[in-house]
C-alpha cells in the first residue's frame, strides 16, 4: 500500500464512523454542535497519532500475551496527558468535553488501529494511518455536529441564522441516532458509486 493511500483510506474507504462504525459512544454523545464534534475529533486524533507511533515502536518487543494491556497503558497515558494539557491551557473546551476525554481510552478506534495497524507496521506508516483515520473521524463528527446543530438549534458553529429553538429532539440522544443513520445511508450510497 502506498503512503498516500494509507493516509487517505481513513477519509472514505475506511472511514471510522461511517464505514467501520467504531467509536459510536463519543460520536453520538458529543456531536450536539459542530464545534463540540470538531473538538472531540481533534482530541481523539491527537491520542490516535501518538499512540500509533509509540505502539508501532514497542510492538516488536512486547510479548504476544500481554500486548493488549501494554497498548492500553500507552493509550491511557496519552489520554491523561491530553486531559491535563487541556485543563491547563483550554479550560473552556475542557469544561464542555471534560466528561468524554477520559473515555477516549476505551474508544475502539484507538485500540482498533493499534491492533489492526500500528502493531504490524512501521513508525511512518502508523503515524500516517493515525493522521488519516483521525481526520476521517474528525470530519465525520463535525458533519454530524453541523447537521444536528442546524436542525436542533438553527445555527452553525454557534452562528444563529434562525430565530427560535429549532427541533429540540435533534440535540438529544434520539436525534443523534436519527442523524447518524441517515448520514450513514447517504455516505455509503455516495461512496459505493465511486
Amino acid at each position: 500500500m502506498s503512503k498516500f493511500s494509507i493516509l487517505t483510506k481513513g477519509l472514505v474507504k475506511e472511514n471510522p464512523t461511517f464505514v467501520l462504525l467504531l467509536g459510536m459512544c463519543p460520536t453520538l454523545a458529543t456531536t450536539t454542535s459542530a464545534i463540540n464534534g470538531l473538538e472531540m475529533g481533534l482530541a481523539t486524533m491527537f491520542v490516535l497519532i501518538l499512540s500509533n507511533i509509540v505502539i508501532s515502536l514497542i510492538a516488536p518487543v512486547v510479548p504476544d500475551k500481554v500486548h493488549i494491556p501494554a497498548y492500553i497503558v500507552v493509550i491511557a497515558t496519552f489520554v491523561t496527558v491530553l486531559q491535563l494539557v487541556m485543563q491547563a491551557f483550554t479550560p473552556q473546551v475542557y469544561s464542555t468535553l471534560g466528561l468524554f476525554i477520559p473515555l477516549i481510552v476505551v474508544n475502539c478506534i484507538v485500540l482498533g488501529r493499534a491492533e489492526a495497524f500500528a502493531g504490524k507496521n512501521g513508525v511512518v506508516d502508523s503515524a500516517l494511518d493515525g493522521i488519516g483515520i483521525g481526520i476521517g473521524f474528525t470530519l465525520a463528527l463535525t458533519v454530524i455536529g453541523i447537521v444536528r446543530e442546524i436542525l436542533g438549534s438553527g445555527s452553525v458553529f454557534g452562528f444563529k441564522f434562525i430565530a427560535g429553538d429549532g427541533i429540540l429532539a435533534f440535540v438529544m440522544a434520539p436525534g443523534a441516532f436519527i442523524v447518524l443513520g441517515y448520514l450513514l445511508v447517504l455516505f455509503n450510497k455516495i461512496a459505493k458509486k465511486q
Partner: protein
Amino acid sequence: MAAKSTLVNMALCLFGVCLVCSAILAGTYALTKNPIEEASRKALKEALSKVLMAEGEISSEAAYIDLDGVNYEYYTQTAEADSAVCWAVKSTVIGFGGPLTLLVGVERNGVVHATKVLSHSETPGLGAKCETEESFIRQFEGFESASRSLKVRKDGGEIDAITASTITSRAYAKAVENAVAVAAKIQEGLQ
C-alpha cells in the same frame, strides 16, 4: 513479530511500559500543575467579579459555613468602612443531568446581586441554556428574596423557567435560594 511470551518477559515488559508511562505522566502533571491552578483561579476571579458589586475589596481566601448539614464555600466583599456588603456563595444542587454549581452574589438585605454557573452537566440545547440564556439569568439580578418567592412559576413562584427545562430551572432557583439562606446565616453571625 511479537516476542514469545514467557512469565519473565511479560512481567518485565509490563513493568517497563508502566514505569515509562508513569514517568511521562508525572512529568506532565508537574508541568501543568501551575497552569491548571492559574486557570481555575482566573475562572474564579472572573466569576467573583461578575456576581459581586463593582466596588469593594473581595476576600482572596475562601471561608466556609455549615447550613442544614451542607458545607458552603463563600467569599466576602467589604466596602470602605471595612463592613461586609456582599457575599458570593458557591451553591451546588442536583439538576437534571447531575450537579449544578452556581456562584451567587447576595447583598446585605437578602437581595440577589447576580448569579453565574460554575459547572453543570445539563442537556445541551435545553438545560444547558441556564448558562447562556440572558432572559433567564437576568431575572435573578436584583431579586428581593425577602418579599418575593424564589421558585419557578409552576411551583407558585416568580421565576420564568427556561422552555422545556423546568427541572434545571427549578434546581437553579433552589441553588439561589440556598445561597440566600447561607448569606442570611453569615449576617447573623456578624451581628
